[in-house]
């Protein structure tokens, strides 16, 4: 069974960066709200990881609607 993980780094300036690991399918979008609630924080930037861009496991529309997505097209696998 695939283990789902969240890697969260809290910097000394108070900002937070987070990354999902091992998550497949569009359910990972739920982790955005989960983290925002858990940390009492709001997302100011997001992008799919290289892992996702290879797998293309789900549509990007939900993130686009949130205005959060910056797809690094240069890293999309052929």
């Amino acid at each position, binding site marked *: 069974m695939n*283990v*789902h*993980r*969240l*890697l*969260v*780094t*809290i*910097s*000394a*300036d*108070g*900002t*937070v*960066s*987070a*990354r*999902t*690991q*091992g*998550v*497949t*399918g*569009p*359910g*990972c*979008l*739920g*982790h*955005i709200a*989960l*983290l*925002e*609630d*858990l*940390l*009492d*924080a*709001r*997302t*100011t*930037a*997001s*992008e*799919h*990881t290289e*892992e*996702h861009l290879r*797998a293309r*496991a*789900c549509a990007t529309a939900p*993130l686009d609607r949130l205005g959060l997505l910056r797809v690094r097209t240069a890293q999309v696998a052929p």
Partner: protein
Amino acid sequence: MSISLVLVPAALAVVALSRAEAGPDDAGRTVCRVSTRMRDPRLLAAALADTGARVDPEPTAREVLTASWLGVQARFERGAPSAAAPEGVWTAHLTGDVDEQRAASVVAAVDAAYGRRVQQAVLARLHQRAGAAGLSVESQSWQGDDVTLVLTVGAGVAR
């Protein structure tokens, strides 16, 4: 599908420190004003104390905080709400042995202390609430001043 995120805690406004601007007050004294990204009065008071300031009053008066160091006094006032900071950010008004350069330096030191306080608060909140959110803390490690936690997503959490 994996994503990476940048999140800003509620205690921080998504704005940068402003440049210090000097001007006279009603009594003719020179006042240096610096707008900050700080929003939480309790963390601000703690950060001021971390820099060695005497803070008066305790952060029960939520709209004004005063602090003093040797030769420098600061009055922190909460600014008007904006899109970036609906509750308003705190602006520092510094007087005494201070010019724009020193004012910026003082506020930068307070901002750095505030960032560390926010980091501690977020870390404590994460540990406190992870279980209820269906997460378990697998590991925690420090690299320099930054701390990284690996959280395992448990059953019942959206995947």
